[in-house]
């Protein structure tokens, strides 16, 4: 209880409510900091102009829903004097078919979001867009969630291109991006580390930004809890996290990094800073047809089996071999 007696590091007046990166901060300063950081990032990454469409991709999870709430603050005169006047367009890729989420739960969630933020949500049902999705995802849990992640990202980019939306935001937090970087290295996508960690990507002519990339998962969780942001959560695909054969590489890495982060508060941001500097040497001009990241080929004759399909990268060959 000794720690409570100290004051917020920011205002120096109020008692702290939260401990973020070893610093103690009060509720009001936490909200102000988080919203300010988000607005600065969004402005620096995309500078959305007056009347310009900004496609906001939501999944129903804590990250993307907090991003939606934060985007809403950009247009709220009570929160900022520098109002942004872009037009928000929402997109929800409905993967309830894969997660077996009851349709009533999805509809209830979408209605609550539309009502609260006064917006229309564009919905793409994954099974309608890709009729053989069940067959494509007939893979072990880790490969299945990887493939689903790429399928959803590709659907978002397709939707943006078809409707001429040039700018998209997605809700990966710093913790999520650092987990992605580490797990993609383990899966064989080391050549694409800099793009996995980047705050901004250019895919098929569409600019995709990650304005939450500087926020830790803990900050996002506290923020959505303060505002009771509507969520549609899904349990991990791994059947069990205690059995090695049924577990998930992503979750193991998330736990590992979370543990490190709690003891060494610079871990996540240092990892991201390092990853953005890792640029592959050589000519890598082709893009993988599945993950849309850099396509690499076999680096020696022992990897010849990885040239079966000409248009996909080393790691996506492994995904296919899981079939």
């Amino acid at each position, binding site marked *: 209880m000794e720690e409570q007696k100290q004051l917020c590091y920011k205002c120096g007046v109020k008692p702290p409510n939260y401990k973020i990166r070893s610093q103690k901060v009060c509720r009001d300063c936490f909200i102000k900091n988080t919203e300010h950081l988000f607005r600065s990032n969004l402005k620096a990454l995309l500078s959305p102009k007056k009347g310009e469409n900004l496609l906001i991709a939501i999944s129903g999870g804590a990250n993307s829903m907090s991003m939606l709430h934060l985007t809403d603050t950009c247009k709220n005169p009570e929160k900022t004097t520098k109002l942004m006047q872009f037009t928000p367009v929402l997109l929800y890729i409905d993967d309830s078919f894969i997660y077996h989420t009851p349709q009533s739960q999805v509809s209830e969630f979408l209605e609550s979001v539309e009502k609260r933020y006064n917006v229309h949500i564009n919905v793409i049902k994954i099974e309608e867009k890709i009729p053989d999705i069940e067959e494509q995802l007939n893979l072990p849990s880790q490969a299945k969630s990887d493939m689903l*992640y790429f399928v959803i990202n590709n659907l978002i980019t397709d939707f943006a291109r078809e409707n001429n939306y040039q700018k998209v935001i997605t809700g990966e937090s710093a913790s999520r991006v650092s987990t992605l970087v580490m797990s993609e290295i383990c899966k064989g996508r080391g050549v694409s580390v800099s793009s996995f960690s980047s705050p901004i990507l250019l895919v098929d002519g569409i600019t995709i930004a990650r304005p939450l990339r500087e926020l830790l998962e803990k900050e996002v969780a506290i923020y*959505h809890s303060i505002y009771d942001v509507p969520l549609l*959560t899904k349990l991990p695909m791994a059947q069990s996290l205690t059995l090695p054969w049924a577990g998930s590489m992503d979750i193991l890495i998330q736990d590992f990094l979370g543990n490190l982060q709690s003891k060494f508060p610079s871990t996540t941001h240092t990892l991201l800073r390092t990853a953005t500097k890792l640029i592959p040497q050589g000519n890598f001009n082709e893009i993988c047809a599945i993950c849309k990241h850099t396509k690499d080929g076999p680096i020696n004759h022992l990897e010849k089996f990885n040239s079966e399909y000409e248009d996909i990268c080393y790691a996506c060959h492994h995904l296919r071999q899981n079939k």
Partner: protein
Amino acid sequence: MSVHIAFSGGLEDLFNKQRNLTVPLESQLTLKQLVFHLKDRYLQTRPELFMSGDSLRPGIIVLVNDMDWELCGKDDYVVQDRDAISFISTLHGG
């Protein structure tokens, strides 16, 4: 005495889709003991998503009366009558 428990970020799915619970307690417990109590009496499925070994799973954030449990002693905090305790999961993907 009783405490008010709130689950979010997916944890509600482990507790029979209940987001809020009022939990009666016969004696004073520490937060660590409360976590075991919740696991033994209320958890319905997949305990590995709530606990890891003998403590709360890393990545679950706990707020006691809107205060980070890291500021009030974590596992050793002694739960008080009518405390509002939120468990927020940050587990994603995979």
